[in-house]
């Protein structure tokens, strides 16, 4: 009898076993469960289980008006809240064929880029921490705080702003807005090289990320992996370049591409994007035109009957909004194509064959935000 138990306990070299990573695992940054099938320490396959924080945002949107939808989109990818708001607003404005003032376009673009930097800072902090470098968490959050302070001064909230409204903005930005952004750029240009010294050149970090989680360009396209994760595989998928919206057609910037397709390539894309976002900010911040902060809107917004589609580039990839309207003040159906949902399901493909410790590195490099997956 006791021998049998011992036999059960000692798992042979070739035997497979399944462990759960999550739903409460610090490196998944939210409630996500991976069912991981292992052979020894090697990952054979992995099944993501989602839905732990499903709130039915798409269904909820069918019962509320267009201005009210904005505050729900904040709560999908909360680290790109401005960009999510903008997606719905652009879609509604397209449907109504409203031309928003130039000032609004500039401010929206600035907010999107600030949001992108803040999001990448938090990702950098957490990614370093996932791989055992706790210091990065403090340094990244220290710099992110500067952006959140700018947000707080202008919109009153730090994470979920609900600031962009169909037709324009909620109210005008704070008079200090431009000054503080310029201060931030000067500050962060000095601090960003520290990130490289601290983590990029670190030998432990490099050994844990180079050549891990290889994703070919074909895989990225097949799974629809967009954003920095897709661009790390050499797939040029930046919506800001392909289909410019807001003020992106007025600025000069480069799309960041890396061809290696491993975890380190995705890391490099994001680091370079922070530099590029600062370049975009510098081009825009001094040229914000004067004018209204919102276009003339009717108090009750009703979209004409039809189907409307808009895509934007969030910090994690392509967010698409698809609205079917039956002419009422609420949408008949609204669908969000969120970047993280597609980015998550490539995990199985790019982690099989690697060790279980690499799982954390790969999922960190995809920069998953779980509420965006579950919606």
């Amino acid at each position, binding site marked *: 009898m006791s021998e049998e138990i011992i036999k059960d306990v000692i798992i042979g070299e070739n035997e497979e076993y399944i462990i759960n990573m999550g739903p409460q695992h610090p490196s998944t940054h939210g409630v996500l469960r991976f069912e991981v099938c292992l052979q020894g320490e090697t990952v054979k396959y992995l099944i993501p289980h989602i839905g732990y924080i499903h709130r039915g945002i798409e269904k909820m949107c069918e019962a509320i008006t267009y201005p009210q939808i904005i505050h729900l989109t904040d709560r999908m990818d909360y680290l790109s809240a401005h960009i999510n708001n903008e997606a719905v607003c652009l879609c509604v404005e397209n449907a109504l064929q409203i031309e928003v003032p130039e000032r609004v376009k500039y401010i929206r673009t600035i907010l999107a880029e600030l949001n992108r930097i803040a999001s990448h800072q938090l990702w950098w902090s957490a990614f370093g921490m996932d791989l055992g470098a706790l210091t990065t968490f403090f340094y990244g959050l220290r710099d992110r705080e500067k952006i959140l302070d700018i947000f707080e001064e202008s919109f009153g909230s730090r994470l979920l702003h609900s600031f962009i409204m169909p037709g324009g903005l909620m109210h005008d930005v704070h008079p200090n807005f431009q000054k503080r952004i310029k201060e931030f750029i000067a500050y962060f240009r000095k601090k960003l090289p520290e990130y490289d010294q*601290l*983590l990029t*050149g*670190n030998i432990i970090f490099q050994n844990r990320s180079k050549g891990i989680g290889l994703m070919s360009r074909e895989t990225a396209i097949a799974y629809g992996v967009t954003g920095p994760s897709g661009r790390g595989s050499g797939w040029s998928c930046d919506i800001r370049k392909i289909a410019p919206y807001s003020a992106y057609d007025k600025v000069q910037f480069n799309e960041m591409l890396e061809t290696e397709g491993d975890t380190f390539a995705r890391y490099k894309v994001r680091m370079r994007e922070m530099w590029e976002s600062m370049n975009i900010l510098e081009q825009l911040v001094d040229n914000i035109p004067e004018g209204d902060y919102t276009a003339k809107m009717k108090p009750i917004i009703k979209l004409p009957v039809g189907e409307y589609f808009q895509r934007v580039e969030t910090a994690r990839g392509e967010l698409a909004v698809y609205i079917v309207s039956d002419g009422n003040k609420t949408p008949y159906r609204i669908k969000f194509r969120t970047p993280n949902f597609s980015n998550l399901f490539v995990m199985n493909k790019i982690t099989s064959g690697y060790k279980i410790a690499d799982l954390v590195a790969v999922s960190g490099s995809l920069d998953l935000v779980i509420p965006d997956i579950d919606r």
Partner: protein
Amino acid sequence: MNSSISKYFSEMFKAIASLWAGMRITGKYFVSPGEIVTQQYPENRATLKMEERFKGEIIMPHDENNLHACTGCGICEMNCPNGSIEIITNRVPNAEGKPERVIDKHIYHLSMCTFCGLCVKTCPSDALAFGQEFEHAVFDRSHLTKVLNQPGSLLRKEAKK
């Protein structure tokens, strides 16, 4: 054989150099107290000031005569996406004897509010504003349901359009 040994040592020195580069940064901050960015929160309560636009809660500003600007129109209730506001009105005869709508209770559920700001933006008489209070911890959830118009308060007449 020789080359593999020299490779082994050169990699080791590279590794030490990369670790040293990171340690220099942390060391620099360790010895420069001017760079401290954290706040001692409960101790600095007296001096802690939120930004003027900070969205802490919804308030209804009253002036020194206990007058507010709310007409009880219910537009904020209609615009709130999650039912955080309930308006209860009374019909009171005015000077000419015609019944007129006045606000009885403006009930605000802080526990459900998402601070979207739609009520403040859409109120036609600018009766609402964001308050700066952020310490909302209470022992019972019912304490988070508030009546915004103060007892005995009246409508400020000139505010009516």
